[in-house]
């Protein structure tokens, strides 16, 4: 319907008994936005979505949709439609009946429903397939039927719970662009859940990264990738080389970190911790593989790392070089393929450097892979 029904989570807690599934979530989702929740399995993404659609009540805090408090409203009274993790198409109903179920329960006539079903089938590129049963469709087709069924209810907010996780890679990539196109077309708010960071970054206007019930960061895709606010976000989204150590000195938004094995290294302080990181704190420094280069020898000494090639692999658009620094510190460097025939044989000693703006200093914290 109207582009512009936002969703607000205000200080929302969700507990199952003593277990806290969601801790103090504060999220402001603007109307018409494509908003993603990104996080590892079991971090509480589905739980948040179920609270928004009305299947469970927050233990504390508020949920506002379009500015209206949703407390006490059941799922059938909310302007939301949920696309379930397993799609939940009605197995005994034909496709067109599935799609127009929301009209049927409101008492719409058969002719009207069939007309609407045809329109929607056209939109999801399945014209003339309305008389099949869900079991007769492929995974991607079911996917699109689930989207059409949700859209048929004309929700203000569409909630999608990892709808692409069951699809193979090619289809998933195709559905990503298709979903984004549909969202642009209908202009309603999409809240999308995924544990695939590529999916979140490519599709979303904003991403919330979650860890064990806590939202660590809410920002646009680029900010999440380049300017993470916690060690968890830095390690969960994309690949990163991690250097642990202590803050040695701070000046003009940069920190020099005395790393445990690689000596003093300089890095930009993440925006979120600019004012809180102090000399002497336990800290971590993150450098993306693609931010590492082979040194041109002009680099400052505090952005230089010595390392020996262990092995390398050719990935098409890039070479991945796996290295060992001092005291066996493992690193990964990714070099763009510019057509040269370079070979990084095992045992080749290299001096690497990096742009201190592309390295991020953060307080020490839990990493995603731990």
């Amino acid at each position, binding site marked *: 319907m109207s582009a512009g029904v936002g969703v607000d989570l205000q200080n929302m807690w969700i507990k199952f008994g003593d277990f806290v599934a969601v801790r103090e979530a504060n999220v402001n989702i603007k109307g018409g936005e494509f908003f993603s929740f990104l996080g590892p399995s079991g971090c509480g993404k589905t739980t948040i979505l179920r609270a928004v659609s009305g*299947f469970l009540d927050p233990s504390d805090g508020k949920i506002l949709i379009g500015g209206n408090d949703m407390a006490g409203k059941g799922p059938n009274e909310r302007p939301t439609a949920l696309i379930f993790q*397993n799609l939940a198409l009605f197995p005994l109903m034909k496709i067109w009946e599935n799609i127009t*179920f929301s009209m049927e*329960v409101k008492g719409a006539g058969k002719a009207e429903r069939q007309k609407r079903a045809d329109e929607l089938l056209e939109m999801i590129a399945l014209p003339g397939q309305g008389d099949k049963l869900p079991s007769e469709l492929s995974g991607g087709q079911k996917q699109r039927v689930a989207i059409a069924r949700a859209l048929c*209810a004309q929700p203000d907010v569409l909630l999608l719970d990892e709808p692409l996780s069951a699809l193979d890679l090619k289809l998933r990539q195709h559905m990503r662009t298709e979903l984004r196109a549909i969202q642009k077309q209908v202009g309603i708010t999409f809240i999308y859940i995924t544990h695939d960071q590529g999916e979140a970054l490519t599709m979303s206007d904003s991403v919330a990264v979650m860890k064990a019930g806590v939202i660590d960061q809410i920002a646009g895709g680029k900010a999440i990738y380049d300017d993470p606010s916690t060690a968890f976000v830095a390690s969960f989204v994309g690949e990163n080389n991690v250097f642990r150590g202590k803050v040695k000195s701070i000046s003009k938004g940069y920190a020099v970190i005395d790393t445990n094995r690689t000596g003093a290294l300089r890095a930009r302080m993440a925006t979120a911790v600019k004012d809180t990181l102090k000399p002497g704190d336990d800290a971590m420094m993150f450098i993306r593989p693609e931010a590492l280069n082979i040194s041109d020898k002009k680099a400052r000494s505090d952005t230089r790392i010595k390392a020996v090639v262990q092995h390398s692999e050719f990935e098409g658009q890039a070479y991945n070089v796996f290295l060992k620094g001092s005291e066996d510190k493992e690193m990964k460097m990714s070099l763009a393929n510019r057509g040269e025939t370079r070979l990084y044989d095992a045992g080749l000693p290299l001096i690497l450097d990096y742009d201190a703006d592309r390295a991020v200093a953060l307080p020490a914290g839990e990493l995603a892979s731990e």
Partner: protein
Amino acid sequence: MKTESTLIRVGLAIYLLMFFTYLLGPLILMGITAFNSASFPQVTPWEVLTFEWFHVLFNDKRILNGLKNSFIVGFFTVILSVAIGLAGALMLTQIWPRIRATYYTIIIAPILIPGVVLGISTLVFWDRINVMLGFSDDSFLHNGIFLTVLGHSTFISSYCMLVFVARLQRYDVGLTEAALDLGATHVQAFRKIQLPFLMPAVGSAAVLAFLASFENYNTTTFTFQKYPTLTIELAQKVRYGINPSISALAFIIVCLTVFFALVHEVRTRRAQLAIANGAPVGAVKGGFEMPKFFAGNPAAAVLALFIAGAVATIAISQVYDPEPAKAILLKEKRAEQKKRIEALQERLRAKRLQKQFKGPDIFGSGQSKVPQPPSKTPFGNVFDPGNLGGTDPNAKPKDAKTPESPGKGTFGDVFNPGSLETTTGTGDDKQ
């Protein structure tokens, strides 16, 4: 190796044969007795093929009345039990997880309680209620149908609940949630999504409930009042001696059971076959095509044979008249009786002769024409040591005397009180 595997296979075959004989033997035997004209259900001696017991059955007012009552009780029990069972099963999925186990135990308990107890308690309970409400003795609370339906439903609804629980375990609650999310009310979600999914279970539960009600005896005995069901009638009949019309009833019931089992089998096989052939699920519900119906479906062939057999049997019963054969049998019986009497008379004569010519064998060659006296042991004289010597042409007709020795029963003298005394006596002496 090879001989070993054949040995195993033969052993298995024998085992299976025994197993199925044990399972089905009584049913088959009973079915056969329905067609024997003998007035007691028996296979041997076979007298004459007859369908008269079916006539007797269909003219038996009490059996027919019992059948009618059974159907009425079954019908209401099905409705009540399926409804209660469904409600109980749905409750199980909704209830607070912590008391789920307890709830399950409580609701399953009626299955574990003996039917007799259920019968008595039903009777007593509604009698008390009747008294409390101040109704007269012939109010509906004392009605046999009412009490029997309630008595049956107490435990049959638990069976139904188990059926529904099994089906509900495969139900994706997400489907109900999806319906709610799309704006359906709870009632709509149940009626349009969950109930259609449960429909097959409703069918199975109904069949189960009907069969359980139909065959119930021990609860019904206490509740039937003026409305005896079929099982009650059968039991009362057996008390006054039975005739093969009961076998005829059993035969009909077995045939109906086999028929419905076959129909069910044919349908499931057809669906499986269609799916295995990659047909879309929708096509399985399609029309009825003869060649396709039989293709690769042995159950369908058996069903067709079965129906053909039933039709043939009914046709034969219409034209077949056992009376001439019966008359012949009667004649034969009379002739046999006559023969027996003659044989007896001859024997008596021979005995008399023997007494006169004691000792020497007047017929010489030893091929005694003296008829043998009836032996007193059930095995004839096979165990007589004298017989072990083979047929000696010169042997004297010893056997003529043997039966006369007293106390030579089946078990020798073991049960002779006198011999018992002597044995124990010697035992005492030795101690």
